[in-house]
């Protein structure tokens, strides 16, 4: 990983190797486990992460989210791209 990956809406992110995204039954919340890291994604981030299986473009994710939530296409695109870029920078997602 010698170059930063800058995402656009065509990118198809997936969980990076050695990152686990799972439901913690004991505490009843979704968690992301990575080397020396524990992330507690909020409700929207959970929905986005569920779509990050490498088969969907960010554009397709946004379409799926705008169908389910009352949110404009433009806002969703911007927010989702920002979230996924941040998670990629943190090594949680790979492209």
């Amino acid at each position, binding site marked *: *990983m*010698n*170059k*930063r*990956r*800058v995402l656009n809406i065509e990118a198809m992110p997936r969980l990076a*190797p*050695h990152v*686990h995204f*799972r439901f*913690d039954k*004991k*505490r009843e919340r979704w*968690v992301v*486990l*990575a*080397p*020396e890291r*524990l992330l507690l994604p909020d409700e929207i981030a959970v929905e986005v992460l569920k779509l990050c299986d490498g088969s969907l473009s960010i554009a397709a994710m946004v379409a799926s989210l705008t169908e389910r939530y009352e949110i404009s296409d433009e806002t969703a695109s911007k927010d989702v791209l920002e979230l996924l870029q941040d998670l*990629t*920078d*943190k*090594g949680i997602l790979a492209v």
Partner: protein
Amino acid sequence: MNTQSPPLAVLAELTHRCPLQCPYCSNPLALEGVDDELGTEEWCRVVDETAALGAYQIHFSGGEPTVRKDLPTLVRRAADLGLYTNLITSGILLDELKIATLMEAGLEHVQLSLQDTSAKPADRIAGMQAAHEKKLAVASLIRDAGLSLTINCVFHRQNLERLGAMIDLAVDLGAERLEIAHTQYYGWAIKNRRALLPSRKQIEAANAIVVEAEKRLKGILLIDYVPPDYYARRPKACMGGWGNQFMNVSPSGKVLPCHAAETIPDLHFDNIRERSLVDIWLGSDAFRRFRGTDWMPEPCRSCERREIDWGGCRCQALLLTGNAASTDPICELSPDHDLIRRLVKSEAGETPPPFHYRRMGG
């Protein structure tokens, strides 16, 4: 009714045996011998109870954890139970086959220590010939195997000038993370403090290098920075609060709130051989003593940061003020803070004395 939530992680110190002799080792001065170490069945029970307790991560550490032949068994057990598995190692005893075996057992992440950026100073700190060269080779094997790699380097007066070079080296080695840890002064590091304590000038230069590197290497290398205690204005949130997030199991099965906790003389530490991990977490005297905020003196008790830094570090309070229940003197609000100022003044400037290396029998 006990409302204490489960720990996030358990540090399993499988052994105190180690081929290295780093003078800032976090193990206690009284190292536990091989005859006292828990057996495989007992460690398996620790792993089972870690998962049952609800911890997310288990760190296999030491000493050098790879001296234990049962390491792959324990890793497999942990991975099968859904624990996130980390190995904290010097790398000295690893080879391609052992790495493949650990990976196949379900290991996710290796945290590999480097002592410096080149062989001569690194081997001097490690107290071992050719250690650095071996570590670099092992770093490549870890990456080639597809494991996640963190480089971990402890910094002090005698290597801080090479902080920038260490960041470059971590990138070259293909590491995903770099842990830059200023020496924490307990146990062995206290013995060597006069040789290790950096100057304020060095600290300021280091802080600037880290800020610049974090920006430049965004998306390339994650940097975790453990700031230097003695130059801070507020104390660290030691272990995220006493008995709040972490448990540490010693080679002989003693269960500690942190790896230095045994320096506090009037605490009794329960052993996994006699009590379950969950029982110790919820009920043991040692874990309850400084948990939460009830034990706090002023100025902590009424401080708005009391649930941010949790009064700092109990071991440090004891070491420097003689009382484990006082405010960590690192805090500028502590009545004992002057101790730190004097200490830094008298020790950080002098010519470093020779190291007192970490060895069995002190």
